[in-house]
């Protein structure tokens, strides 16, 4: 019974950490739009947190700029998030760098450096698509916990 409660609690309370790696702010604005009352994330128990220690799902936006150490900083932040975790890349930039590909200022795409669980294309993707991928990540986490 306790195991069931823990499992239900884990699926009903996904906390999200938003990691920006150098986006043009398009995806970030869509994520903020998703936080409004129209999409009402709270009904799924979803909350945004500023501390990677508290997160279960990571939304990554941007194409990973070549600023000194930005790649290491991303890896460092991701290492601070306790397992089990799911990484969702939001926007074309994190998939292929989009309009910034071949730029001297870009170290990405993100897929080259880290393992991403769910890829969401779009420039920028719509808020309901982002919400759908978050719910997909919750399912993924549940399956992962069952497998473990």
């Amino acid at each position, binding site marked *: 019974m306790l195991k069931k409660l823990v499992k239900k609690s*884990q699926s009903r*309370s996904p906390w999200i950490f938003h990691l920006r790696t150098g986006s043009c702010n398009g995806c970030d604005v869509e994520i903020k739009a998703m936080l409004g009352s129209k999409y009402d994330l709270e009904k799924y128990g979803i909350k945004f947190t500023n501390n990677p220690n508290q997160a279960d799902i990571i939304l990554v936006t941007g194409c990973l700029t070549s600023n000194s150490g930005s790649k290491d900083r991303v890896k460092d932040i991701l290492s601070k998030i*306790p397992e089990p975790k799911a990484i969702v890349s939001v926007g074309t930039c994190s998939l292929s760098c989009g309009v910034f590909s071949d730029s001297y200022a870009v170290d990405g795409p993100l897929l080259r450096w880290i393992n991403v669980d769910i890829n969401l294309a779009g420039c920028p993707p719509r808020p309901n698509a982002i919400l759908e991928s978050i719910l997909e990540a919750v399912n993924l986490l549940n399956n992962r916990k069952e497998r473990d």
Partner: protein
Amino acid sequence: MNIVEILKFIVCILIFPGVIFVSLFGFILMGIEEKMYSIMQQRHGSSILQPIYDFVKFSSKGITLPSKAFKSIFIAAPVLSMVTTLLMQMYIPIFSNYFIWGNSSDIIFILILMLFPIITLILAQAASGNRFAGINISRAIVMLISFSIPLIIIFISVVYKVNEGSESGISLTLKSIYDYQIKYGPLIKKISMIPAAISFLMLIPAILGMSPFDIYDSNTEIFGGISSVFGGFLLGVVKFTKAVNFVIVSSIFVTLFFTFLVSSINILNIVVFYIIVIIVIIISISFVKSITSKIKIEQAVSFFIKVPTVLSIISLVLVYFKL
């Protein structure tokens, strides 16, 4: 003390109105508050059980510590806060006039313990080694000082009112306030107590760290406020303390101003008590949260000095003139 009294004592501490009841009711109270807030915003909102889900999820995780933290204080502070908050429940007269430790000057003790969760969070933040800790600590201390002044004046005016014309000296117990109201009716009926009650109602969101006075513990502030340094199990403990504190602070408010017996059946009195507690939380937190915007620390301090402090002083003056 015979065996029945010992059993009653154990049941009171562990089950009702002790640890199990107060924690479950605290989480449900937090859930009701969130639900009412979302209804006021015309949203579906989270489930009433959401705080329980959050608590269970965090409790099932391990303890995560910041690398530069002073570990013993960082772990001890939230645990200490949880224990002292649970201890306060023993002073609140809910169960058939049953006080566990209500015979000495407990009002001073209650006043200190009400502020203890914030003090321990400040301690934990200081021990976290976080570079933003200084900002959060200074904000929390400024808020703590500014809202504790009217809080102290409210308690003084209530004690002064209750001991009016007393020949046996001043009694500083919650029991004396409870007995006075059972004898003469709830204190809210007295003209002198109305400003004090309004002032206390304004202070509840500040004591509980809720909007608009959540400046030191808000997700949208620098590095997410004072409880953001915690993760995993310790965050679960902080959430638990907050839930229990919801019940404690609102129960103290109801005990100070709204104590009355509806019938000779105890269960009915207890149900009425907790219905008033729920209404107090909805009015002072959900309603206020939905109609106010975020404010700066200067605005909050200025508000505490201009409104609750003035109201509590008016109450004290009215009590002096025996109104």
